[in-house]
């Protein structure tokens, strides 16, 4: 099944979650899904692949191309080709918000700043190096120290009034710092938002290394955290694009990469009809 009727699957095997997207060759998203990566990378990717087929009502023979991305990409042996999540996030940001020139992708253990051109192709990028400070793990550590789950951690920080200072140089030490602030009687909201601002400072530092050119699109799992979005905007002094789909940025970009290779299309943006706010399945 070829032409505009075919389908491509993008699988993003990340450190915490594996995300997947089924896309039609015209760029329409047919289904999305997410599962914990766990220790068996191929198994979780395979499980996700079959769940996506079921959701989309498709069989394997309908799929023209499977593209893997993320740290586990080379273990997705049923895929046709692999692409780094850096290239994938660039394509996805352009697809979701075509005026994007700078992408911030914040995942479980990686934060990436990516500069892209008018077609979503990568010009330059910078990443955190061998340290998880300033990534999703940092949020997990801060939330754990405060006895919150990640959903609570997303909302509660919005009520901060006088955020505390958290040094943000080390995820492990940040946990201790959070506890010290608790012991000193600081409000939970102020501690949490203080941690977010710490992370945002590091992320903005990365963004400045590649040069911040509007619009900025915030992707990856952490982009669903409302408190974090606010902290990034406050630190960057500008609005950033996010949507329920930005957490699927890697998988969307992988699918787009597949479509580009199959069809030779130079540029793919989200069809206008699909641009309305939508609910996306969560784990």
């Amino acid at each position, binding site marked *: 099944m070829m032409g505009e009727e075919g389908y491509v699957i993008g699988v993003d095997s990340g450190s915490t979650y594996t995300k997947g997207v089924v896309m039609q060759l015209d760029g329409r998203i047919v289904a999305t899904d997410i599962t914990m990566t766990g220790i068996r990378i191929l198994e979780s990717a395979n499980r996700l692949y079959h769940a996506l087929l079921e959701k989309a009502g498709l069989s394997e023979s309908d*799929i023209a*191309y499977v593209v893997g991305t993320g740290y586990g990409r080379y273990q997705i042996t049923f895929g046709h*080709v692999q692409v780094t*999540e*850096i290239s994938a996030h660039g394509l996805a940001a352009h697809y979701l918000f075509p005026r994007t020139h700078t992408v911030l992708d914040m995942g479980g253990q990686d934060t990436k700043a990516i500069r892209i051109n008018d077609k979503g*192709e990568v*010009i330059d*990028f910078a990443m955190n190096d061998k340290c998880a400070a300033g990534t999703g793990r940092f949020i997990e550590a801060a939330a754990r120290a405060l006895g919150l789950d990640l959903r609570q951690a997303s909302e509660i920080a919005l009520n901060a009034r006088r955020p505390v200072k958290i040094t943000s140089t080390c995820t492990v030490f940040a946990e201790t710092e959070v506890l010290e602030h608790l012991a000193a009687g600081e409000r939970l909201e102020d501690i949490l938002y203080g941690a977010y601002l710490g992370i945002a400072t590091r992320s903005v530092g990365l963004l400045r290394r590649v040069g911040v050119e509007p619009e900025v699109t915030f992707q990856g799992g952490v982009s669903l955290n409302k408190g974090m979005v606010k902290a990034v905007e406050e630190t960057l002094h500008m609005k950033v694009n996010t949507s329920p789909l930005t957490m699927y940025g890697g998988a969307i970009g992988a699918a787009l990469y597949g479509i580009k290779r*199959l069809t030779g299309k130079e540029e793919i943006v989200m069809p206008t009809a699909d641009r309305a706010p939508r609910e996306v399945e969560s784990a």
Partner: protein
Amino acid sequence: MSATAKGRALMSEEAAQYRVPKEYNQAVVLQSQLVRKYFEDVAAAAAKGKKIAYGLVEANPIEILRLFDIPVVYPEVFSLQISYKGGALPLMLAAENEGYSTDCCSYVKSGVAAIPPIGTGQTPLGYVPKPDIAVLTYSGCQIYIHWWEQYHYWTGAKIFTIDIPYVRDYERDHYVPRHDVRYVADQLMNVISQLEQLTGIRYSEEKLREILTYTADAWDHWRMALEMGKRVPTPLDGYFEAIYYMSLITLTRGDKTTADYYRFLVDELQRRAEAGIGPTPEEQFRLVFEGVPNYPYYKDWWSLFKRWNARGVAGTYPKVAGVVDYFRFNPDKPIETIAEYMIHAYCNWNMLMRADLLKYYVDAYKADGVVIHSIKSCRSFSMGQGDFKEYFVGMNIPTLMIESDHVDPRYYSEAQMRNRIDAFFESLALRKGLK
């Protein structure tokens, strides 16, 4: 699922594992024999009671030591050899056990921990004797002085210090004031008179000229070999292979065998070029490299580039013992020419000159981009590399910056390294219109 993949694979495992056919890779074999012989000769000399000198790769006046029949050991070289063979970690731990910090240069740590009293002196290439004298050519690296003090502390070696002024005048390209040359030349004369007393051998300018004639010959052929990287496609990898080929110009410069070796290398590269043989199955990308390599995972690290059929066309690291592009030895003025050579060590150049050299490589060697490998241990080499990156990106030259260490294996993460390298090639491929 139907296999309808279009477009050829831009990277492949075959390319990653590719080896140059044996008949076109004899220079590496010959060199490893000569390097082994060098280590044997040094060990034999020490066993006979000869004085042994330790020297630094940067700015080493090997010709003068040759004149006094003093074999030179280079701790940087045996450290990288140990690391290349996978033996660095125990030395890092042994040095740290003696109180050297985790942040201390890993060359220093392995260089000190490999020899008695901390280590045994046994290396993958043979026995390394302890120093009787340590010739400190203080150029470009501030740690050198403290490293050599450590040799004095542990072995009682006598230290000879030669201070090398930086090349600091950017406006007059490659200009070195005469008084700087005189400053180094006077120090060399002082060392010579001390070596006369130490060895009982009289200084002979005529013999020094003879040694330098071999040096100049090897140097010219070394330059010719490296300039083969200008050819499209290039027959050699001007970074990963050049790093192998730079061993003898560092270790044994100044004799006929070394001069002959570089002739042999040029011939082999010429044969490669004629047969269309290169370091990868084909040439998809041409890169300029800045920085010291990762030795503990050298071949794995190289394969991350080979996988994309990428060839290094030029690099600054193979010039660390002297910027061969600009400097020529003049045997007629032996002391002055050695002094000038010492001043023109790559890390002794100011940052603007270094940036210009890289830009020259990008243009003259028709490179697609620049790879900067920063190492945790060495700030004298890595300092300013962030600025280099901004400089090149500002000129629309694709530039990748990656980081690990040259000796300490604990700083290398293949998944992170590969992610960055793959992403760089993906964007280079788009730029070149490769699908």
